[in-house]
């Protein structure tokens, strides 16, 4: 028997495979299938700040204040008070997932502003969330806003939320920071229990017909795991925060590499969307085979075994490896050129 257990955000998990925020958690059916397939925990689909704002604007304009000042119509849509906000539905769904799943459920907040998150966090806590993942969707496009200010904003947001709830909080980060370890140190001070590396932004695309910007999100590819491997390897052992690797895991191979680099959990989304929840079970089985073949007995054993600290040549994951890749475009040493 392997001991696949791991720990993330202080949660004891039976294995390191955790479906990340995706539409799969929206339906109880697929959530149950994920659990059956072996998922150790579930990160819910995100509660988007923008969606709550848009919904508020919609309700304000078209339900609560839709009068146009004409005597025949005080409004145009029935406001029977039965409609619930996305937040209410989210909370209800969270409670439902908690009542039917035995694995921990991590609620996910996605936003950018500083307001309202504490109240939201409390409500999620009350609805039974085991932990929170805070995904700060902030594109630092303002030239007057320094990198330091950006980082301070993250820390401040986290600190505020941490002060308001008793749940462990993971911060999901983008790779676009000039000094990720420094930021993570600040987050640690602000009360984070983990970081998830990395989020994948919705990217604007250009529609050539209409010349309009359109949102688009492509599924990940295994190549994207490389960036995660590097940073997990760098951070493992240098922070007390638990580490989640997110993005690019399509098979047991990426999962194992990330664990070797030092991830406490590995998130899965695109591969599950492509192949269904049962894919998780297959990856788990393939991991076990690989471990068996190499006589690993536990995840704890392999976790971080190839982190930067544990490598004979720590530079290999920093700039040196870049140089080596460039070298790799030259002919092999034995070849005369």
């Amino acid at each position: 028997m392997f001991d696949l257990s791991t720990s993330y955000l202080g949660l004891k998990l039976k294995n390191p495979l955790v479906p990340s925020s995706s539409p799969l958690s929206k339906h109880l059916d697929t959530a149950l299938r994920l659990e059956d397939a072996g998922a150790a925990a579930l990160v819910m689909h995100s509660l988007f700040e923008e969606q709550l704002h848009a919904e508020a604007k919609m309700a304000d304009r078209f339900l609560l204040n839709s009068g146009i000042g004409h005597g025949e119509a005080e409004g145009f849509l029935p406001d029977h008070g039965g409609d619930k906000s996305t937040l209410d539905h989210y909370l209800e769904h969270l409670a439902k997932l908690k009542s039917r799943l035995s694995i921990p459920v991590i609620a996910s907040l996605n936003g950018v502003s500083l307001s309202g998150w504490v109240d939201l966090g409390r409500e999620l806590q009350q609805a039974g969330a085991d932990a929170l993942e805070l995904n700060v969707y902030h594109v630092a496009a303002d030239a007057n806003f320094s990198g330091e200010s950006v980082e301070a904003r993250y820390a401040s947001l986290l600190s505020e939320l941490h002060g308001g709830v008793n749940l462990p909080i993971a911060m999901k980060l983008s790779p676009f920071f000039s000094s990720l370890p420094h930021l993570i140190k600040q987050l640690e001070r602000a009360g984070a229990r983990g970081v998830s590396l990395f989020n994948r932004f919705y990217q604007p695309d250009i529609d050539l017909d209409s010349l309009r910007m359109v949102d688009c999100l492509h599924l990940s590819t295994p190549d994207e795991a490389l960036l995660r491997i590097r940073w997990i390897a760098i951070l493992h052992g240098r922070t007390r925060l638990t580490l989640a690797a997110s993005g690019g895991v399509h098979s047991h191979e990426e999962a194992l590499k990330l664990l070797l680099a030092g991830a406490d959990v590995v998130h899965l989304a695109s591969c599950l969307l492509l192949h269904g929840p049962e894919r998780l079970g297959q990856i788990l089985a393939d991991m076990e085979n690989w471990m068996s073949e190499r006589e690993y007995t536990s995840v704890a054993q392999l976790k971080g075994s190839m982190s930067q600290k544990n490598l004979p040549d720590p530079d290999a994951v920093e700039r040196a490896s870049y140089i080596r890749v460039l070298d790799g475009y030259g002919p092999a040493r034995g070849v005369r050129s």
Partner: protein
Amino acid sequence: MTSSQTPTIDGNEAAARIAYLCNEVIAIYPITPASSMGEWADEWASRGQPNLWGATPKIIEMQSEAGAAGALHGALSAGALATSFTSSQGLLLMIPNLYKIAGELTPFVLHVASRTVATHALSIFGDHSDVMACRGTGFSLLAAGSVQEAHDFALIAQAASLAGRIPMLHFFDGFRTSHEVAKIIAIERDTVRMMIADDLVAAHRTRALSPEHPVLRGTSQNPDVFFQSRERANAFYDAFPGIVQAAFDRFAGLTGRQYTLFDYVGAHDAERVIVLMGSGAETVHETVDHLTSRNEKVGVLKVRLYRPFDPATLIAAIPASTRAIAVLDRCKEPGADGEPLYKDVLGAFANAAADGLRAMPRILGGRYGLASKEFTPGMVKAVFDELAQALPKRQFTLGIHDDVTNLSLPWDESFRTDAGNALRHAVFWGLGADGTVSANKNSIKIIGEDTDLHAQGYFVYDSKKSGAVTVSHLRFGAAPIRSAYLVGDNDAGFVACHQTLFTERYDVLKQARRGGVFLLNTAASAETALDSLPENLRQQIVEKELAFWVIDAYQVAHEAEMGRRINTIMQTCFFAISGILPAEQAIAAIKKAVEKSYGTKSKRLVELNHRAIDMTLAHLHQVDVAQASLPAATGFAKDAGWKPALQPPAFVRDVTLPLYAGLGDRLPVSAMPADGTWPVGTAKYEKRGIALEIPVWDAALCTQCGKCVFVCPHSAIRARLFPADAAADAPVTFKHVPAKSKDYPAGTQISYQVAPEDCTGCGDCVEACPIHDKSNVSHKALNMADVSPLRAPERDNLDFFLALPEFDRDAVKHTTIPGSALLDPLFEFSGACAGCGETPYIRLATQLFGDRMLIANATGCSSIYGGNLPTTPYTTHADGRGPAWSNSLFEDNAEFGLGMRLATDQLMAHAQNLVKELAGEIGGDLVDALANAEQREEAGIRAQRQRVAILLEKLQNSAHPRSHELASLAEWLIRRSVWIIGGDGWAYDIGYGGLDHVLTLPWDVNILVLDTEVYSNTGGQTSKATPIGAVAKFSAGGKATAKKDLVKLAADYGHVYVASVAYGAKDTQTLRAFIEAESYLGPSLIVAYSPCIAHGYDLQYNGRQQEAAVKSGHWPLIRFDPRLEASAGNPWKLDSAAPTQPIREFMESETRFAMLSRSHPEAAEHFMAEAQSIADRRYQSYLALARQGEPKTGS
């Protein structure tokens, strides 16, 4: 008492609460001002609220009031307790069934918000003409005069009807009572239970049709027994007044509120008495109290039960000392020597006098309050004064200045009652969309429910749907408020103006009383605010010694991230300044109300509103007016300094523009057209200036595609061609460039000109503009810009543009979008919603065919923005020709239009015969040409007009005995294009029978259905055009069935030209369809997708949503042209491609669908799947039809 015991509600809700509790089946059809009663019932049912018997009443919306009445008759016959709510034309449609229901002695209560019946014009406002039309039905008529009475009488009517088996029509004044918000004492559920006797309910059920004990009802009877049968029911009517009084008495025992059949108030030794019913009785009551306290011997008799009429009780209720009586009727019976109540009272006294029971008093009859005309204490005083005259007017009118038949009584406008003086009055000027009305309703609730004060709110709305002005009239006082009239001049201790723009346009301080408060939302500071006002307002501030407060509410809203939502901010100012409640208590109450309204929908909105409320007081400043000097008395001047270039004709100057300025009440009878016929071409004089931003043309970038003109809902962007030298004296900012098309002579110039004060700022034109700056896609050939610096120069440019000579219409390609854009619209500057999706179709029709259009317009949005005074958007070419427009009813529009066609054809044939008969006078060639003219195309019509001119010249010199007759008919020799226009409520529901019938006939009519997929005008009720899964009133859980496929139904006849169009998705197809439909000699039907504010998205994106509707398969574009079948072609043309976008994406982008995902997520999922399947199926079926006759491919 708690707020649930003394709620602050309007008359409709007050009546509906009882009706809901006491009934099992509620069949309705929306009609103003009764609609909200049905909507309340629907809302309560959708929440599962039980009636008295623990069940949720079944609510059903029918296709018309006639349908509702039929359903009610059936439900009552089968044993249910049933009710409905209606008004005016709706009540008239129910009349046949009312006779039946009464004839069968059926307990039933119909609640009516009484409204005038359309005569020379439609009016949505209140009087008793609808109720009076029901006198012969056998229904009992019970009149409530206040919100409290509407609540109480709803129950008393129910109890009495069950006891006496006479159905009751319980009515109260439309708008004045139905929409007045007042604090009332609610009837406890237990009281309702005690009033409704179980044994009487059981007796009703026992009489129900049942196969267990079958009977026959609804027989046909012969002369032998019909008459006796009618008389057989007399005893029920004889007993009924006593039964109603018994119900009044039982009610009094339970609630302490005692009513009688005829309630007398006033001096016990009165000599002069007014008799009337409805809300006016409350105003008379207030005035009588005032006069009797000054020892005047006057009184008022409030008629409660009008039918069955009980003369003995009426006479007994009037003091024997009475020497003169004025009976006031809120209706008019033309040709009669008095109105109904007057005649009844006169008859009662005549009989009593003849029997020696009572001396005959002098009895006068007066008409008042038609279509909610104001009825004030000053007018009441005038009646009492008239009664004191030695030779009073036997018949008179009140509230108007009748300089034609001189029937009106003059009145003292400054007369006020003690009760009025004891009240606090407040007036609020708001924009329709700025939430002023809802905030005021909220304030009244707070005051009504958090204090012992009585509160009243009445709201004056606008005829416009964009940039509408609302005026809220609020009263508060220690005693019950009987003032059923507006806050008068110099009465309001508090006046708020929520929009700075209004200070330029209206005398917003006329109601302000000396020493009162004026609160203004303005960007001006406390230091500059006074100077920013027009002189007449500054003068009033000083003269009336007003405390002047200012706040920049838009700035506060912006800082609080509330966008442009200012209502809670202004509400906070009102409470802070007025001191009606302690500030802290008021702010807590406003916040509580915000939580109640917004809490379930968005905590963020609650948070933002709270933030705005907290920020408000710091931004509220009092202006120091003590030092202000009195400005010179120059009077009120609109937009001083500007003189319109367009000089209006005398009628517009003397009638239309005063109406627009809000001075219509002062126009005398002689100023009115006698038959309801008004001039066209008047909207252009309004210059409403409601846009904050207007489009600016980048002439260099523009490709002159004309799409902006094509989509403009308000005809506020125009294109015109002209020779270069015509622009020699153009204003310096007037833009024009050489026309790019090679179709026009070299040097021809083109200009796209915006009407800056007619544009609503919707932005549809900019969205539709396909041309981007290659180096900066955000810059287009049209771009929205702040109107302030543009208003004056563009005003001059527009004047210049409109004065340019009209380009030769024949030289323009009507069949292209750029070409059609060059045709002058004869429908301009309507008051439709900004971004309306209907009006571009009407504008297009007038561009193409306006000079020969006869329009029959169904009641609805299009009749309101088309023909609601003071102005009309329909206009003419320079030669005076243009669409002639009329509205008959909601339900008969297809038939109305068909009648126009028949008349046109008949008179044309008659004229042609006369032409032949007068051939000797006219000359052979001209006769042939006139009689056989080819007039399908515009050029042919123009040629015929020239022939007719020649004909008329010849006839002038003719001595033929029929030459005058032919001269009067000659214009009918010119072909007319008959258009039948209306919305989906008309075409799919109430008028479908007529529409269907007209479609089966061969006559050449063009039917344009402006399909918003919902009843737009009455506020979003479900129609049969509403798509599956859409939320609408009466479909709170999403419409469960598919939209009716009107296109397919019409095309199935085979001889009807049919098109389904969406101008924002494929403008060329829309244009082609209009041209083809008009040229087809049989019936044509264009079903036009019309985005509406009821869809729940910003109409700036109207075009984008039309595109999505088509791309998703929600709205396939088709044309069915029977002419093609005749030429062995396939009449079916599918003009849209196979759906490329999931219908879910379309549905999720509109609130009408998206809100279901929050209220009923599982149903929403189900409906989206079903909608996809319907769209796929429909597309495939259209595709199969379009491919008929194509060679088969494959094996």
